[in-house]
């Protein structure tokens, strides 16, 4: 099967940032926690490939470590969403029409009704700004997304003949959900996962931009943008590179999501053309 171009392009883009994040564990061009005031605010050059900030730290190294923060926060937030949302959705579908289904879905509606960024700000403000609290704040809003999508998909599978056969064979709802429903909705979850991943990167950037994400000295892309704001007129490169990092990571993930959907969801493939 030929892979869609969007998947190759998006996957490639994201792979660059993922690789940068992984490499940063072993090596960065400079140590991001050591200040080097004499070489502050350098334009991109042979030593500092992407320049240096107002404290003389290497932008490239900070971007690499920042990639780690962004990706980690977004991955764990998606993990929370799937980890809690998927069982809730499956549970609701297995008990379709019961009060349990109703309670789960109304709870979901409630979370959806909140402007997510406002509540994320509230949560991080109350429990103190940190990467962990940013993860929780973003993760909470992923729960209803995955609950809704897995319930919807599971409901349509519950009506199929092979589920009836499994029930006749004496399997209970939990076993049916895990053995028959889950493998059939995995595609949808993967596609939605990439979308939520990219939204998570944007949300983390916004939170750390207003000072509610990862705290210094841990570099994060949003924080770098906030720091660069007062210097943007004479050192635009400080704002340019972290912003581009965010744009390309999110773009990569979105393209990947599109590509994956084309492969994994035959229904959409047909209607899209």
């Amino acid at each position, binding site marked *: 099967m030929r892979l869609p171009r969007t998947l190759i392009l998006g996957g490639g883009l994201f792979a660059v940032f993922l690789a940068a994040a992984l490499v940063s564990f072993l090596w960065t061009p400079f140590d991001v926690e050591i200040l080097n005031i004499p070489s502050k605010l350098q334009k991109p050059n042979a030593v500092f490939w992407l320049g240096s900030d107002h404290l003389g730290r290497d932008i490239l190294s900070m971007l690499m470590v920042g990639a780690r923060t962004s990706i980690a926060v977004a991955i764990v937030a998606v993990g929370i969403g799937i980890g809690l949302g998927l069982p809730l959705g499956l549970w609701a579908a297995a008990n379709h029409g019961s009060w349990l289904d109703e309670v789960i879905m*109304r709870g979901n*509606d*409630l979370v959806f*009704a*909140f*402007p*997510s*960024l*406002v*509540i994320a*700000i*509230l*949560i991080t*403000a*109350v*429990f103190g700004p940190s990467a962990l609290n940013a993860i929780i704040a973003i993760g909470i809003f992923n729960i209803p997304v995955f609950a809704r999508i897995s319930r919807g998909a599971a409901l349509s599978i519950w009506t199929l003949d092979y589920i009836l056969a499994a029930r006749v064979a004496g399997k209970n709802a939990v076993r049916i959900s895990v053995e028959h429903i889950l493998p059939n909705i995995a595609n949808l979850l993967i596609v939605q996962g990439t979308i939520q991943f*990219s939204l998570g990167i*944007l949300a983390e*950037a*916004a939170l750390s*931009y*207003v000072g509610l994400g990862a705290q210094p000295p841990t570099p994060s892309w*949003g924080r770098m*943008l906030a720091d*660069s*704001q007062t210097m*943007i*007129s004479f050192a*635009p490169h400080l*704002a340019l590179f*972290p*912003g581009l990092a*965010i*744009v*390309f990571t*999110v*773009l990569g993930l*979105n*393209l990947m999501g599109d590509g994956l959907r084309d492969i994994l969801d035959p229904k959409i493939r047909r*209607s899209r053309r």
Partner: protein
Amino acid sequence: MLRFASIRLVSLSLSLLAASIVIFAVVEVIPGDPASYMLGMNAQEDTVAALREQLGLEGSIVTRYFTWVTGMLQGDFGTSYTYRVPVSELILARIWISLPLAVYALALSTIIAFPVGLIAAAQRGKATDTGIMAATQLGVAVPNFWFAMFLVVIFAIKLRWFSAGGFPGWDEGFWLSIKSLTLPAIALALPQASILARIMRSSILDTLDQDYIRTARAKGLTRRQAITRHALRNAMIPVLTIIGMQFSFLLAGAIIIENVFFLPGLGRLIFQGITQRDLIVVESVVMLLVFAVITVTFLVDLAYAAVDPRLRRR
């Protein structure tokens, strides 16, 4: 219709009730007592107690929750701990920045997205379509506060067309105020316009696949006529839902953008409230935003049910 409306109204009230409980509970967890925070480290114990009394911090959580909610229902949001003025006054002063900003951005986003989405759909598969889709794909990925920073550099610092931040106040003249909201509104609108244009395009394409469009084409309408006379109106249903939803994104996004442009709106108010432990302000502003979002969703639902009877049966 009446039945549908009343059911939705009950669920609206329940949502608001649940939201108020959640917000109150979250804010109550904030460590640190506002009274001792305001009076500093060397305050006498009885002074702190007196201030707590004055701020209405005495009594059980349940009593305080009911005081807060019943107050809000009567338009009384309590008194700010730090400013010592009614919270409703603070909110009223700032809402006339955040709300116009969100509406301005929504208008911009819609004005941009409609023609763009329509053109892309009409040119499906051609170079124009591909170009538009690539541009919107990029637009979705751009963080609005980053875009805002470069708008400031280009249009405020280099070209000097707009001020880099701040708000003159509506008394200083309508156009001057609109002008100072223009860059923030553009920054907010761009990503939303990209999303909306994509939805507009796919929604039109979906309707173009319908049988009634084939019938329209068969009776001799051109593609353009089929789109303008039949497809457009039906394609609007999902588009309008998204516009309703975008209002909530824009209100929340305004909070971040207000920080870039130093606009004294609700967003700044929340952040000040958080740093100064002004819980009552934080609670009330967040509740107000949630109220706005839930109410807009309700109105959109109602508008649909009025237009499309099929939706009443849910």
